């Protein structure tokens, strides 16, 4: 009888700890009992596969979802989704959401005294192509205050949610912008212990993909868990 191997653990320092008191909300919401090792069975090898039927027109252009143009710096965010062997993850569902240029989310619990933009919802989604490539057009989000500690401000960021090959490749993270002085002060950014791992969440300014008189571009690659050993089902287009 062959025993399944256990689910592999992340390289130390490259993922945040659940309990991180500098991020106050983690104190009462993080587990304190030891995490249990899990055998890697069919449940862990498989995962949901999302199809193109899910994606609508303008889902990857956050500047074109309303009557008028949103206010702010127009940007292109693009990059590749790769696995641990550096191979492209095809057909990965990428979901994004963000604050507007003033640092305000279109959400009822956001009470920051900054204007909403009637022309900006701040949500998008797309599937990666055969090279693992994604791209979307949006406006650059603003920094915003939050209640974690005195004079706390989140650095500008875009939230990303991804499904790769297999449920264990699931990733929710945030993309940051280069040269933001708020990053070293941010407990969420700092929750990843390893400096190099933190810096991999910062996008790169990309003059080559910036378009004259139109937009600036930022490039950001993501790496999902898995080594392409997960059986893929044929994706319907």
């Amino acid at each position: 009888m062959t025993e399944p191997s256990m689910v592999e653990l992340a390289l130390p320092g490259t993922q945040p700890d659940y309990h991180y008191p500098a991020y106050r909300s983690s104190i009462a919401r993080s587990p304190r009992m030891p995490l249990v090792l899990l055998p890697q069975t069919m449940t862990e090898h498989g995962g949901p596969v999302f199809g193109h039927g899910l994606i609508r027109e303008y889902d990857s252009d956050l500047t074109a979802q309303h009557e008028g143009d949103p206010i702010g710096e127009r940007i292109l965010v693009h990059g590749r989704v790769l696995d641990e062997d550096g191979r492209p993850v095809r057909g990965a569902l990428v979901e994004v959401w963000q604050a507007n240029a003033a640092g305000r989310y279109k959400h009822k619990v956001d009470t920051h005294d900054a204007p909403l933009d009637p022309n900006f919802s701040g949500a998008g989604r797309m599937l990666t192509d055969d090279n693992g490539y994604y791209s979307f057009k949006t406006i650059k989000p603003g920094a915003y205050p939050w209640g974690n500690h005195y004079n706390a401000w989140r650095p500008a960021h875009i939230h990303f949610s991804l499904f790769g090959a297999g449920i264990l490749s699931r990733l929710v993270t945030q993309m940051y912008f280069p040269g933001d002085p708020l990053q070293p002060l941010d407990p969420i950014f700092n929750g990843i212990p390893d400096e190099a791992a933190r810096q991999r969440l910062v996008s790169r300014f990309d003059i080559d993909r910036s378009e004259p008189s139109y937009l600036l571009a930022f490039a950001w690659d993501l790496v999902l868990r898995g080594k392409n050993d997960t059986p893929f089902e044929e994706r319907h287009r």
Partner: protein
Amino acid sequence: MNDSARIPSGSQTVGPYFRIGLEYLLDRTPKLAPRVPGTIEIRGQVLDRDKVPVPDAMLEFWSPATVEGGVSNNGEPSGFPAGFRRVATGEDGKYTLVIERPAPVRFNNELMQAPHFMVLVFARGLMRHLLSRVYLGGEKVIEADPVLRGIAATRRATLIAQPEESRADLHSWNVVLQGADETVFFAW
């Protein structure tokens, strides 16, 4: 590791505003009718250390086998995979989901696992999502499941949804993020 080996990107919290980007999926989820054969309903609440309901949690449920002996049918015209659901908690920390009933899943070449879902827990305050499992079928599943048998006897019950006496298709299951009755979460 080969030359192109890469380290997986670091996780960051889903934050309090995830509904902006993630709730659309609820509208694009094929609707299943409750109380019909082949579907089940799970209801519960997400609670923190102080038993305060968590009003901004998101749960994702996944089973690779939602028909007896078969594999989930992915790639429907809707683009929505079977065996998967995303739900968010309300102001009271409660959630409800209706999903295809899961089937037993192979453990290895000899043993099967009892019907279950993998559960991913996201919330403000969670820097990285939590991995758990929920089993259907009451206490009797423990003997039938190699993963449950490997968990300390005192904590197994946290992974078992309780069927309602009045309705066999309705189960209740709470997620306790911290405390003496903390739900079992897995390392990954």
